[in-house]
């Protein structure tokens, strides 16, 4: 079959009516045949645009070619040269706005399914127990401390270890992974995969200390005084935002962070086998339109709710969630209340949620974000009968490290200020990246920041001068 005629291959997946009541992963992944077929769609551009779209600069055509040629292990190793967590990124990266959107095949046809191929190669290596750590150069004599074991921290740690530094990660929770463990649900990112990828980072020689809340247990200055030559801050998401409407402290109102942490990290979906409880709900409203909102809604369904509604004040076009996630949620029977804004959560005399007052919205003039501003339609108030409300409208910055680190500058929202090109903060030797710097973003952006930080930390620790910034205009010769 000529190349142009091969359509983009779909991953087989659990049927919606089946998966909506279990926590197993939704797609099964490519078979080797499907992977090779999909890889054969790539034309291996001389100047590949896809790499430009990858925050961690994976040599995409090279690994795709290895898959096409049947060297699946080689493909996995190629991925890991640039990305220590490919099985995770293959699952949760928004490829449609990074690598795949730039794919030239996508101009006339659908782009090569780079994400699915990444996932396939990484899974092949792991499932066949072929994961091996590369040779680590001899110790440089330098130590780095990494605060937070999420995607940013794991990336920094892996990169620095590969350069020969000794790295210790300090993690506040009792498990590694950060948002990969507490935030993203099992059905989208199985925890065994997170554990395996963390194991790989450990194989690179990285040590992880759990239950260590930097800012309380020890300060950044103490880390520097105790022999760490540089520190990376990847503390992640902070306190959740709420709507600031009446009734938000009723029982049955959760932040998405709490709802997902109970279910994912604490395994509340297996209560009482696991001790952490979670609301047993009939009708759930999830407020917000992002990926986290989709995760919370689909979790609510799997926890046994009869009805789950996404309540979002703008229209479908403005929803920040990935199309794939919205599509999966819809297939599973999540109902979308678009152009709808809650105005009050109502409770019974015991303090439990019994309903939510909402108002319909319409789109007006564009606002500061360039999206059309939703405005309430007078007289359109109505009541939704719900017993659980999950607020998923983002989070602020965690204050613990900034509060206890003199000389560390933050912006007006409390996010740590870090240089875009080096991740350096205002404090010498201290770097930062991920949600604590850019606010709630994606796993891969955090990893990209981690990569930038690792290079700069390496230079700082080794006394290598920072490369001169690119000149703005060509010098007059």
């Amino acid at each position, binding site marked *: 079959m000529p190349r142009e005629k091969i359509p983009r291959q779909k991953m087989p997946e659990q049927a919606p009516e089946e998966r909506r009541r279990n926590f197993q992963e939704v797609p099964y992944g490519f078979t080797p045949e499907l992977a090779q077929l999909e890889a054969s769609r790539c034309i291996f551009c001389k100047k590949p645009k896809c790499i430009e779209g990858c925050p961690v600069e994976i040599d995409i055509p090279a690994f795709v070619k290895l898959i096409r040629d049947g060297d699946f292990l080689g493909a996995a190793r190629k991925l890991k040269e640039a990305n220590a967590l490919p099985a995770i990124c293959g699952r949760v990266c928004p490829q449609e706005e990074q690598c795949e959107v730039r794919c030239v095949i996508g101009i006339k046809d659908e782009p090569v399914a780079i994400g699915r191929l990444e996932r396939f190669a990484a899974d092949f290596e792991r499932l066949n127990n072929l994961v091996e750590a590369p040779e680590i150069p001899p110790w440089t004599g330098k130590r780095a401390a990494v605060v937070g074991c999420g995607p940013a921290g794991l990336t920094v740690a892996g990169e620095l270890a590969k350069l020969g530094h000794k790295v210790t990660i300090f993690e*506040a*929770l*009792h498990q590694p992974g950060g948002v990969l463990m*507490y935030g993203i649900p099992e059905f989208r990112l199985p925890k065994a995969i997170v554990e395996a990828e963390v194991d790989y980072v450990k194989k690179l020689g990285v040590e992880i200390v*759990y*239950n*260590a*809340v930097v800012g*309380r*247990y*020890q300060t950044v200055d103490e880390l520097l005084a105790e022999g760490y030559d540089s520190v990376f801050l990847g503390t*992640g*998401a*902070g*306190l*959740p935002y*709420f709507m600031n409407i009446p009734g*938000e*402290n009723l*029982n*049955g109102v*959760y*932040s998405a*962070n*709490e709802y997902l*942490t*109970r279910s994912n990290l*604490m*395994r509340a979906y297996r*209560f*009482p*086998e*696991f*001790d*952490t*409880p979670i609301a047993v709900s009939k009708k759930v409203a999830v407020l917000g339109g992002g990926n986290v909102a989709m995760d919370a809604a689909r979790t609510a369904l799997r926890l046994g709710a009869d009805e789950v509604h996404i309540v979002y004040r703008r229209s479908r076009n403005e929803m920040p969630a990935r199309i794939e996630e919205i599509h999966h949620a819809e297939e599973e029977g999540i109902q979308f209340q678009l152009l709808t804004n809650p105005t009050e959560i109502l409770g019974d005399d*015991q*303090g439990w949620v019994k309903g939510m007052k909402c108002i319909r919205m319409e789109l007006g003039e564009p606002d500061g974000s360039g999206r059309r501003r939703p405005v309430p339609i007078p007289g359109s108030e109505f009541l939704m009968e719900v017993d659980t409300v999950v607020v998923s409208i983002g*989070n602020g910055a*965690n*204050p*613990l490290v900034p509060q206890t680190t003199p000389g560390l500058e933050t912006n007006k929202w409390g996010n740590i200020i870090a240089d875009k090109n080096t991740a350096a903060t205002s404090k010498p030797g201290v770097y930062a990246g991920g949600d604590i710097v850019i606010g709630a973003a994606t796993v891969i952006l955090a990893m990209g920041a981690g990569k930038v930080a690792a290079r700069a930390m390496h230079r700082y620790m080794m006394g290598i001068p920072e490369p001169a910034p690119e000149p703005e205009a060509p010098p007059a010769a």
Partner: protein
Amino acid sequence: MNEIITRKVLAEGVKEFAVAAPRLARARRAGQFVIVRVNETGERIPLTIADADPEAGTITLIFQEVGKSTLLLGTLQEGDRILDVVGPLGRPTHIENFGTVACLGGGIGVAPVHPIAKAMKEAGNHVIGIIGARTRDLLIMEDRMKAATSELHISTDDGSYGTHGFVTTVLEALVNEGRKIDLVVAIGPVPMMSASTKTAAKYNLPCVVSLNSIMVDGTGMCGACRVTVGGKTRFVCVDGPEFDGYQVDFVELVKRQRAYLKQEDVARRQFLEHHPGERCWETKVS
């Protein structure tokens, strides 16, 4: 790490562990707490640090066995390890020389008030300790509170020991005697803290309370511990645990503490079925 060095039974259903945690023992300040998880299937529960010995490298945890997690914790013996201990969490108590500070501890609340009384006394305050329990057998830490305070008063609900009445009965009597009090610190069950605040308000005394809300991560990520203080939502784990009692919505706090009563009951019953030897003196479900 986290090994139980000594284990004592302070009263029926109330246990005290000295836990090896050297760094925590050095870092913690009065008013802070830890979160513990007993085993791999366990939940994360906040417990106050009742005391610490930086030289021995231990922290003291005192807890009442009310639900499955505390019952399970209570089954641990000397030499056992608590799976996870994380802290110190929360903001430390604001310690300064206020003059005279009344430290009120109700029931298990004596444990968290103890380090605060100690620190207040060390800062030069005259510390009036007022501790109470339902009945004499349930009163804890009397000797240590005596040492930590300048004077100690005791009350029991049933009159079996000390003043017949509540800690607020004693507070009120002292104020009526003309004793000048510059600050009240009240820690205990929510009704006790609410009553203490009301009594303090009657005499225009500032009153600090320490809130024991439900938590999950305890580090400022999940928002489970939110309370209404002064009409605004605050987070006990990073903004607290101590707040101005006048501003706290205690009615809401009680309701929020009861959010998982049904599940807690299921878990406790299941635990007691499998551990017939363990008994909880307060397992009656109302």
